[in-house]
């Protein structure tokens, strides 16, 4: 039994269209939520080019790259789950796989944060990387890490919501109560969070590492 059409819609098609279009509008507003962080990043890179490079070299390239691979794998599962001909049971399995990979990403990210706190890279008053240098240089590095933590934390928060969405939709699929567009909705959101990371990874991890 699929969930019934809500009373204020004229048809199932209208409801599906409203839901999908609503998700696209929501993603537009989400993209702009990250806007000031990217704008701030532009400021750091233009005003403190060397400090930004120095700070970026403190990020954990191995774990960051591993996380990128994890997230792309999760997106693959999501894309497979959203294939139109897929049966509910196997779609649910794929969503669980996405959720599990998402959780793995969050665990690895947490590990990275732990290392960074230990290396005094958290940008509060205790910010003291080994190569801080002159005050202006240190300020630039600190600002880079403000943005690093703000961007990755906001991304992680979004990913956590994505994991929850996967689990909710997977449950609905297992019970046969999912609407046709629900997997697509979860997928749209998931891929948005993924694409964000595809921007964050080079911007935060790969500066002057070539």
């Amino acid at each position, binding site marked *: 039994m699929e969930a019934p059409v809500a009373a204020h819609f004229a048809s199932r098609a209208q409801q599906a269209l409203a839901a999908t279009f*609503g998700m696209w509008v929501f993603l537009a507003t989400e993209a702009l939520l990250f806007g000031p962080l990217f704008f701030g990043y532009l400021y750091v890179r233009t005003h403190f080019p060397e400090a930004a490079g120095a700070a970026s070299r403190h990020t954990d390239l191995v774990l960051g790259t591993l996380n990128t691979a994890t997230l792309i794998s999760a997106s693959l599962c999501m894309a497979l789950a959203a294939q139109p001909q897929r049966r509910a049971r196997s779609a649910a399995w794929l969503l669980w796989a996405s959720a599990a990979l998402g959780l793995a990403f969050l665990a690895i990210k947490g590990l990275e944060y732990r290392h960074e706190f230990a290396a005094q890279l958290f940008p509060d008053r205790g910010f003291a990387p080994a190569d801080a240098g002159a005050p202006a240089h240190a300020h630039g590095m600190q600002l880079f890490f403000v943005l690093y933590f703000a961007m990755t934390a906001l991304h992680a928060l979004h990913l956590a919501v994505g994991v929850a969405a996967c689990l909710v939709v997977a449950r609905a699929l297992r019970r046969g109560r999912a609407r046709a567009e629900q997997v697509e909705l979860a997928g749209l959101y998931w891929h948005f969070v993924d694409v964000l990371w595809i921007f964050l990874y080079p911007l935060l991890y790969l500066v002057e590492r070539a």
Partner: protein
Amino acid sequence: MTSAPETAERAQAPSYLAEDFTLWSWLGTHDHKRIAVLYMLSITLFFFIGGLAAALIRLELATPQGDLVTAETYNKLFTAHGVIMVWLFLIPSIPAVLGNFLMPMMIGARDLAFPRLNLASWYVYLAGGALTLGALLAGGVDTGWTFYTPFSSMFSNSNVVLALLGILVLGFSSILTGLNFIVTVHTMRAPGMTWFRLPLFVWANYATAIILVLATPVLAMTLVLVGIERVFQVGIFDPALGGDPLLFQHLFWFYSHPAVYIMVLPAMGVVSEIIPCFARRPVFGYRFMAYAILGIAVIGFLVWGHHMFVSGQSVYAGMVFSLLSFLVAIPSAVKVFNWTATLYKGSITFSAPMLYALGFVGLFTIGGLTGLFLAALALDVHLSDTYFVVAHFHYIMVGGSVMAYLGAIHFWWPKMTGRMYPESWGRAAAAIIFFGFNLTFFPQFLLGYQGMPRRYHSYPSEFQVLHLLSSAGAVVLALGYLLPLAYFGWSLLYGRRGGDNPWRATGLEWQTASPPPTDNFAQAPVVTQEPYAYRQ
């Protein structure tokens, strides 16, 4: 025995007001009309709280000495006034109350696309309002509504973080409303309701919703960054720690200039409904009116730098922003000319809603033209941060938006409640507000031109005559605002029943019962003609 025709009419489906009478039927409602009423009650409360702060400001400024409140308290008063009026009243005013109530009916839908989200946005609004009000009452905030850094992030000793949090939460309420409106207009239109048959009120709310969805998240993240700077003492915006205050101003005004259009576009939509109805003429140049709304929304995103002419931004950026700001005048003028042309050869009735609408046209024109003064680079150096600016934006926001909001409440009151307000009181209040408004704010143009800076609680005595005129006007204005509160309350109980369409207006919202049933229409409407089919 109740009167026969009335009961027969209502017997088909109970109105949205009579559907259920329990408290939970209101607090848990998914009906866009009830949510609109919830919004109306809350923003009215905040309007009068914000007004109280304004009254204290004007009282202080009646004398040149700072004798009523200290400078510090004065700062907190104008911050409270600005924050409450912008985020708790003006931004949600027309969209969340009238847009919510009318838009689904105007397009022939049974509700907004996401009714539960609509209710959620009201609760989010209340939470944000409570946090903000909490910050203002528990000691206040002294930064001004603009929260300029590094003062707000490093130096102010007031409740900045709590206020930022409140505004952040309010922002999400705006986003949810905007998202709902966009999806509703795209997907919920009745058969035959094509884009160019949409009433201009719907166009206006649609354009507003786009701004809400695209600009508000930028404010949200900017306020988070101010909070981070304040809590962790890092330099994002503080130049002493490597940050840049201009970065904050760019981000803040990227939201806050479009926010002006969030406040005034819905007002334009209201006026575009009222004027054709009371002139009995189709709106002049309908398509251009729709394009002008979209034009203002788009250009509005490109002019934020005109708030920063004297902040140290590059002269070339200033020149570009100045030029773009002048461009806003073109679609705005299209609208003013078209309203005027709609009146031409019309059979005009000067009912209360029409008085407000005509007041809007005049006051918006003055506000808009003085905006051109401020968009001119050299003149802005002289006028920046003076009372000229204060007068300019109050002409747009109070003379424009609040006038239109009141006009809209009068116009659609019979639709919302089924009852008429007392017409002569309505006209009297409109006249008093118009007079009081001009007496309050016109002298401020002169004050600003003569060099009186804004945000001071004391001033040289040669400014006293103009300040006193302004304060006297504020008393008249306050009376004008209290009058509708009284007679609308009276009308709820004793007002004459107006029938379904007392103004003989076109528009789908008038083709159903007043007040409408919960499902809006007994039968799903099919649209076969253009809007504003008024013939003399």
